[in-house]
């Protein structure tokens, strides 16, 4: 008997068939991975299991019994728990409050803080998930926040734990720790459903794997008996083209991007970057690794001019311009917060930065704006109903392609890319990588920040490791993940 089962689940959003007769079964104590392209229907399926969506057809079973889930409350009652990719935490409440909320201990009509703290401490102890019960969640690092989410589910006695892309925001070290935790939790009999795009993770931590494609199940595998190729085939219906061998020839020419003794302080005078120096030459990709908060954001903002005209950054020999230096193409990691205005049309989103070039004097002819957008949509094979659709209605992968289309067609010789493949499927990822390689081959100087070490190893000629605002190590592009991972935690030499 399975801990949880989805039987013949179908879900439609207007014309989109997000889930099409899906069967999925999870055994007790099993780590079950769910993979698939962007838009394959993974999140929809998980949302149905957690009562956020109701299926058009099909049913959900727990321990063999049919259950009806009208809301997350029902799901929680049936021992289901979910950890969302975008955390569902209350920044202004403490760790303990975040965990007990919805099932708070009460004494004499008052909230029993002591009991809550104790319960949380006990739970942390049991699963080895350390977190200070009285700390405010708003100030915690991402990894700890995720622990709080997991603790919350466990506190509510979840026997089936759903995690939607849990590692997208984690550093390699945090990811390793998460997997340890998942194994511990699974060992106590909890079933785990893990949605992810990273096949290495699937193979590392999963027991079984279900592959979705266009709303259907296209493969069921046992992790120990399959490999990445087989999974990719099931996901996209073909194999990935093998990575282009790294060029042996070192890049030549004067640096297009040069950073010299860059020190950046925040509004309060605390140094966020200290004496950072490096250069990127034409035809070179320099990778940037580091745990979150090591100064990547400050470095990227300095290089793009968003931090103002900071001394020490030079583009083709001249200081960077304040505001946003138009000589830099920049793919931000925050897709909805920074890279797009979700409610504006695709055309108006890809226009940003080129509006003055497209204008004749003051006017900005609509026909010209649309024509340019259509051209980009075609060239970068972005699937969108029309260039007038709001970009927020596009899938994550297509929105990301639109951002790349906009940035890579700028007349820029320096490219800054921040987590360019976060949350996108392997197909899109392959395409993004190809675009960056092409840009490099055409002579661009590329600074690539990524928390995925495999991505850095695939693309970068050199990898700089940032730690507490300093470049503490530089590796060649083929450095091992162990070497890099050690450096990221500050261990030098």
């Amino acid at each position, binding site marked *: 008997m399975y801990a949880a089962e989805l039987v013949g689940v179908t879900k439609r959003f207007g014309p989109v068939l997000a889930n099409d007769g899906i069967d999925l079964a999870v055994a007790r104590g099993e780590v079950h991975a769910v993979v698939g392209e962007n838009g394959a229907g993974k999140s929809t399926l998980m949302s149905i299991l957690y009562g956020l969506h109701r299926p058009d057809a099909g049913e959900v079973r727990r321990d063999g019994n049919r259950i009806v889930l009208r809301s997350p409350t029902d799901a929680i009652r049936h021992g289901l728990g979910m950890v969302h990719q975008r955390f569902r935490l209350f920044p202004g409440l403490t760790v303990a409050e975040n965990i007990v909320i919805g099932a708070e201990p009460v004494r004499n009509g008052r909230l029993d803080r002591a009991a809550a703290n104790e319960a949380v401490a006990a739970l942390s102890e049991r699963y080895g998930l350390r977190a200070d019960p009285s700390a405010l969640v708003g100030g915690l690092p991402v990894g700890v926040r995720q622990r709080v989410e997991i603790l919350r589910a466990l506190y509510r006695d979840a026997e089936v734990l759903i995690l939607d892309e849990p590692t997208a925001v984690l550093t390699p070290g945090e990811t390793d720790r998460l997997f340890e935790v998942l194994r511990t939790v699974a060992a106590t009999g909890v079933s785990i459903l893990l949605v992810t795009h990273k096949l290495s993770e699937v193979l590392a931590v999963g027991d079984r794997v279900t592959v979705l494609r266009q709303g259907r199940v296209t493969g069921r595998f046992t992790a120990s008996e399959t490999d990445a190729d087989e999974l990719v085939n099931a996901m996209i219906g073909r194999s990935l083209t093998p990575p282009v061998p790294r060029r042996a020839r070192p890049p030549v020419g004067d640096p297009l991007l040069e950073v010299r003794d860059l020190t950046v302080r925040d509004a309060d005078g605390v140094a966020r970057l200290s004496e950072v120096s490096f250069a990127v030459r034409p035809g070179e990709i320099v990778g940037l690794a580091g745990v979150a908060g090591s100064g990547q954001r400050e470095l990227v903002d300095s290089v793009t001019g968003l931090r103002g005209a900071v001394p020490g950054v030079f583009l083709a020999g001249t200081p960077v311009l304040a505001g946003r230096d138009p000589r830099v193409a920049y793919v931000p990691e925050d897709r909805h*917060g920074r890279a797009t*205005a979700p409610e504006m049309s695709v055309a108006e989103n890809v226009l940003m930065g080129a509006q003055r070039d497209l204008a004749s004097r003051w*006017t900005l002819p609509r026909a010209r704006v649309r024509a340019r957008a259509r051209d980009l949509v075609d060239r970068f094979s972005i699937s969108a109903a029309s260039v007038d659709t709001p970009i927020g209605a596009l899938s994550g992968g297509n929105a990301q392609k639109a951002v790349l289309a906009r940035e890579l067609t700028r007349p820029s010789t320096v490219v800054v890319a921040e987590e360019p493949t976060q949350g996108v499927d392997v197909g899109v990822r392959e395409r993004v990588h190809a675009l960056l390689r092409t840009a490099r081959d055409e002579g661009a100087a590329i600074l690539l920040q990524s928390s995925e070490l495999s991505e850095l190893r695939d693309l970068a000629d050199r990898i700089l490791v940032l730690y507490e605002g300093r470049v503490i190590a530089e590796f060649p592009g083929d450095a091992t993940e162990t070497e890099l991972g050690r450096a990221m935690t500050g261990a030098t030499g």
Partner: protein
Amino acid sequence: MSAPALTRRVIASAPVVALVGALGLTTLVMLVVGVDPTLAYPALVRGAVLDGNLEYTIAAFVPTLGMALAFALPLRAGEFNLGGDGQLAMGGVTAAALALLVPLPPGVAVVLPLAAGAVAGGLVAVVAAPLSTRLGIPAIVSTLLISAPAVSLASYLVRFPLAEPNTGIAQTPPLPEAAHLPALGGSGYLTIGLPLIAVLTALWLYADGRTVLGYEIRATGQNREFARYGGVKVDRVAALALAGGGAFAGLAGALIVLGPPHRFVDGALTAPGYTFTAVAAVLLASARPVVVPLTVALLTFLQVGGQGMEREAGVPSQLTQIVQGLIIVIVAVLATLRARRPR
């Protein structure tokens, strides 16, 4: 689009549904309190457009449209300008002061006070920009708070330094003949204010949809971080939008003062409540700029017609305020129902 399809779309459009809904509810209110709708509504229409009342409707339409632009322009950049009253009053008093104190040749005597009023209104409004961008005080609050002292200042100026001596009321002396807005046709109320505001509205619509600045303002309003990332100088754009809005308000004030009775009467600018009628009209247009002049016309019609209804049918004109309030609520609801309908 075919004619029937167009008709269907107009009939199903939010403002129309809201108007019908609100009129239905209002009729209900009338019946409950014993007012005869068959007397009230014709009186309303007559009061707004017939019997020579149209010129008053137009006279009220001009400043209301000006105030609508004063609210709508900053709104496109994501800033709520609720301080229209202060901008209006300062614009008016500046125009009056200039017309009274500086002897100007004909033509210039009209243009310069109008321009000065616009500048004054813009200055009052732009104060909110750094408060919002630097200190995080939302414009919706700061404009409101700045408005009250600005109205007081205008009132002080009219009461003391600019006051007409030996009169019972706080007002400036009549402005010199040269500063009167040229009238169109025989009526004193139909002035060049109407074509002026119409041209400015058209310019704004054009700028909003078809210029770089309009694009940058909208991008700033939709997602400030996105605009900043894209190289838009968002603080400057926000300040510009607020200043532009304030300038429209200031211009509206100047237009009122240079029109009949050709002087600044304390309270005459703010008492009719142009500011909030305009806010209502813009919200009613639910962020579609082209519709703004129509919604302004509708609300002005109701307001001026309400006076006629009160005179003729004895129905308190406040009834039209009820209609306006209901329309806005209904439009807000319709907007979400529409958004949730599958595309």
